[in-house]
Structures are given as structure tokens and as C-alpha cells.
């Protein structure tokens, strides 16, 4: 995984609460292996008409938001199904960060494991950010994972927290499997204890 330290990108406002992972990644595409086509699956049924044309009224189809790398979303983003393919689709679309007041629990951990930084901020802060990037399209937001700090278009900074272990993995570009495998003696000892007990 590519390390995540600091990132600055155009932010897109996405003003919907409770966006479920079925919206982000319709189930019918999930049989496909992970490849570049995932970029077209993201928000597919909102982005495209049934005959495949782009819907001009959909915000992520509109320049400059079609090149956004940060999504400023509504509360409870990524609720529902555990499909990691929702994260694959967002990553394929070019997103490296989603800002929201809250996230679906499984989506949050899936995102961390794929270099898509989920940033939780107060709802009033998120609403302000969304308004700022909506009224000045093309405005950028910066996130600094080491400092756990987001810089808004007006220069104000906002602290967020990412669980320590996941943050270490992201900063160093490591994945958890390799790190956990170094704990094999502890895992084997746990199994031996239980078998004996």
C-alpha cells in the first residue's frame, strides 16, 4: 500500500446523509475482479442514466468536481453492506479522503485498509466545509495524517483522530497482515492455553 502522509486536493461537496454502500457500489458489479473498471462503478446509478449517458446534474460529473480527490459527505456515510468494493470504487474514481460527521462502521475500517482516509469531524464543521467547497468550486482541502489535522479552504485547521494502529500502517504504507504475522508466537500461545484450559 502507498504510504499516506499529507494530501491536498480539490474537494467535492456531497450533500446526502446515510449514503449506503449499495449506492456507492451497486451489487451487480461486484462479481467483477478489481480493476480500472471500478472507476465507472462508483455511484454508478446516480452518475449514469440507464443507457449509460452521464447525468449532467450529478455533482461528481461536473467539472471541477469530476477531478476531486476529497469527498465532503453527509453523516453516516458508507452505511450498510460490508462490501469493500465500495472503497475500491471510490479509490478508482480518484478519492483518497472522505470527510464526514460519521461513517458506517465497516466502511470506516475498509477505507483505512485501502489508503482512503476517513476523516471524522463535527457535523457543523463538515457542513461548513461542504458549503465552502460548493460555493467556490475547485477549492482544495489538505489533510495531514501525521498531525491528524485538516486544513479548510479558509485556512482554519481541524483536528481528527484515526485509530493508532491503522494510522501507523497508513503512514508507513504497511498492511496489517504482515504486522500481525509477527505475533504468531502469541497467537499460538493463545491456542495452546485454550486447548489446555
Amino acid at each position, binding site marked *: 500500500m502507498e504510504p499516506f502522509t499529507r494530501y491536498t486536493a480539490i474537494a467535492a461537496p456531497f*450533500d*446526502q*446523509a*446515510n449514503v*449506503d454502500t*449499495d*449506492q456507492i457500489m*451497486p*451489487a*451487480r458489479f*461486484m*462479481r*467483477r*475482479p*478489481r480493476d480500472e473498471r471500478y472507476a465507472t462503478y462508483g455511484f454508478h*446509478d446516480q452518475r449514469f442514466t*440507464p443507457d449509460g449517458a452521464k447525468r449532467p446534474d450529478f455533482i461528481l460529473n461536473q467539472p471541477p468536481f469530476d477531478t476531486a480527490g476529497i469527498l465532503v459527505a*453527509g*453523516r*453516516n456515510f458508507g*452505511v*450498510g*453492506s*460490508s*462490501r*469493500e*468494493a465500495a*472503497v475500491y470504487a471510490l479509490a478508482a474514481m480518484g478519492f483518497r479522503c472522505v470527510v464526514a460527521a*460519521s461513517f*458506517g*462502521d*465497516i466502511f*470506516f*475500517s*475498509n477505507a483505512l*485498509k*485501502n489508503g482512503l482516509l476517513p476523516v471524522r469531524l463535527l457535523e457543523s464543521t463538515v457542513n461548513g466545509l461542504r458549503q465552502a467547497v460548493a460555493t467556490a468550486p475547485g477549492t482544495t482541502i489538505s489533510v495531514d495524517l501525521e498531525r491528524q489535522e485538516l486544513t479548510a479552504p479558509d485556512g482554519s485547521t481541524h483536528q481528527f483522530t484515526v*485509530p*493508532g*494502529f491503522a494510522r501507523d500502517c497508513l503512514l508507513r504504507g504497511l*498492511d*496489517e*497482515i504482515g504486522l*500481525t*504475522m509477527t*505475533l*504468531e508466537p*502469541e*497467537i499460538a500461545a*493463545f*491456542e495452546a492455553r*485454550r486447548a489446555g484450559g
Partner: protein
Amino acid sequence: MGQTLFQKIWDAHVVQARDDGLALLYVDRHYFHEGSFHAFNILKARGLKVRRPDLSFGFGDHYAPTVGRSTPEVADPEIRGIIETFEANARANRIRAFELADPDQGIVHVAGPEQGLTLPGMTVVCGDSHTSTHGALGALAFGIGASEVAHVLATQTIWQSPPKQIRCHFEGALPAGSTAKDMALALIAQIGTGGGLGGAIEFAGPAVRALSIEARLTLCNMAIEAGARTGMVAPDATTAAWLIGRPYAPAEPDPAWSRLFSDPDARFDSEVTLDATQIRPMATWGTSPEEAVPLSGRVPRLDEAPDEARQKAWARSLDYMGLRGGEEMADVALDRVFLGSCTNARIEDLRDAAAVLRGKRIAVPMLVSPGSSRVKRAAEAEGLDRIFKEAGARWEESSCALCVSMHGEVVGEGERCASTSNRNFAGRQGRGARTHLVSPASAAASAVAGRLVGAA
């Protein structure tokens, strides 16, 4: 201070704890399905082996067709390919998989418990959010993503941060005609899909104690729809009686099961209480499980929304669902009905629906897909299949079917479906499909009436 049921199971599985609260938990049972192929690909790409193939079990369910039980005969090549991959991954890693042709095949959250593979006190994970279902047996069970599935396959452990602990009491007795599905929808309507966010909900109170295991499975299944990571019910005599005699269950209850309850002085982060006596048959009207009202009620008007975010969401929902605020639920005409899914396709669910359908004819098409092949055989032994068929319903094989519509059939654009499944998200049953979540009895009554109604 006493411990909660959740803490007792958590503590018994900590392999290593970090200072920041994160714990490496040992996984007793891992389930997977055809959709878990991403995880096997991650293992393959890294050249890793499955550490404990004896603790993983596969069930072919998400892509299982509702007609035919032979993998080579699956018509759609993409679907056939994904089922073949599932079966090949299991064989290559020496994992027991309940393949399409297996007489014990079924939906993982129906067939796993049915096999006795989920036991009280276990940690259970699966790459499927409805893994919360298994908490009904007093297990700590939660859904995970593909990267985490790969982690579990490689290490038999998972990193978890401790969730908020929530207790949900259902006081009083549930009225006749109301079900665990109605309890779940009433709860979610009250606390919202973010109400349990990231939490572990323990369901308690007299109305929960009185539920059968199958009904508890339904209730815990829907915990994820309240945003919770898991739902659970403390095991009791009902649990032990239901488990003993199942293929993978012990011959006698484990004495340790009797210690699996929340101590009287255990502390929860939050508690919520519902009056079960007031719960009536429910249905969703919108595209979020929280958008639910009693079937005797009406679709809410936008000016009744509690806040601006909800008002916007309701407007989108009404538009997608093709409904007007203020409309009576009983006036909503249906195009079809689906009885199935890990929420409501167990034998008791089929009996509930058959009791309503006996001697009647359905007014709109209805698909019945039993939760497992065993459930299907049990229903046929009782003659339930005849009741469904004589009423005019399709009686087909076990599959996730129209809950997630990955198996090749969808609810059409603009079609309105009363469904016993768990999610009414936009596009869930097919692009443009309109879903109303209901209980099995309400689904059957609605099929007869051709519109949304509760069982008389």
C-alpha cells in the same frame, strides 16, 4: 463492577491488547461466501496460506440461483465463474464448503446456525454485514471487509477497537401478530440507522426472552441496520435446547454457557427501552430502514421531518419510492412480493406466511426462497410448499435471491416489492426497484391483497 455479556466474550479472546484500546481478538469461527473471492485473491497475491482451514466454513448463497443446484448448469457465465471460484478456493485450501449441490447448502446466516457451527461465547466473523445475526446464540459476531477476511484467513485473528455498549430492552409482551421483524423496524424507526453506530447492542427484556431462537436471529440480523457492529442475546435454556443435536453442536450444553450474561451491576454506555406491547406490524416507506411506520399508519409528510437533513432525505426517498407524504400505507399497491433472505427465511417464517396464505390466492407474483436447503426440505415435509404453490407463489431453491439480486434476477425499474429482507436501499433489489420491508406474515397478507397490509 460486573461485566457485560459482550465484555466477557471479548476478554476471553484477547490475544494482545494495545495501550490505545485496540485488541487482537482470536476468531473461533470464520464464514465466507462467493463474494469473499477478493480475500482469497489477496492471500494468493501475497503467497499466504490459510492458517486454520478447520475453523472456516463456506456457504454458496449470494450468487446461488433459485432454480437448479448444479454449478456446471448455471446459465450466466459470470455467475457460474464466481461460484466455481468459491468452490475452487475452498477445495484448494482444504476448507469445508457447503457448495451449491450440497444438501446442507443455505444462506450463511441461516445454515451456519442450523449446522450448530455458531455456539454461545464464540467470536464469529464473516465478510458480510449481517453476521450480527449469529449474536442471537450468545456469540460475539460481526461483519468485516475483504481485507479483514484475508487477515483472518492468514492469522485467525482480527484487530478490533472496543465498540460502545448499548442495551436495548423490550419491555412487556409482544402482541399476537407482531414479530421480531416488527421489533427491529420499530427500534430502527426510533433510534435511526445511526442510532447504534459502531456499537454492540445487547437485546434484553421479557419480550426478547420470550422469542424463539429463530426470532432472535431475525432481531440480531437487523442490528446492523441500526448502524451497530453487532447484536446479541444472552444464551439461555431456549438457546441450549435449540442447539443440542445439530451436526456441529456438542451433545450436551457447555457449563460455560451459563456464565454468559450481563452481570446485574454491569455498565452500558447507553440504554434504550421500547414498550413491546405497542409494537404493531411495520413496513418501510422510504429507502432507509429507519423510514418505517406501522402498516396501519401513513407515509409521513415532509413538514413532519425532525430536522433539515431528514427532510432532504425524506424528499429523496418519496421521490424514489413514487409516494406522496400523507398517503395511507394500506393504499400502496404492489407489483410483487419476496419471502426470503437471512432475515426471514427460516422454518418459522415460512410457517407464519403459509398460515396466512392457506386456502387463498395471491394477487401479485410472489417468490419464496427458503433460507437453506434443509429449511426447504423441512417445509416440504410439513406441506408448506403446497400451500405456497396452491396460492400461486413460486417455490424455489435457497439463495440470498432478491435481497441483494446478485443471482441473476432483479426487481424491475419502478416495480414495487414487499420484501422480508433487510435493506430497502435505492437499487438494492435492482436498479430503480422500490422495496418495502415487512415481516413474513405481512408479506403473505400483502401478496393476497396486492397492496401493503398486515395479517388479519
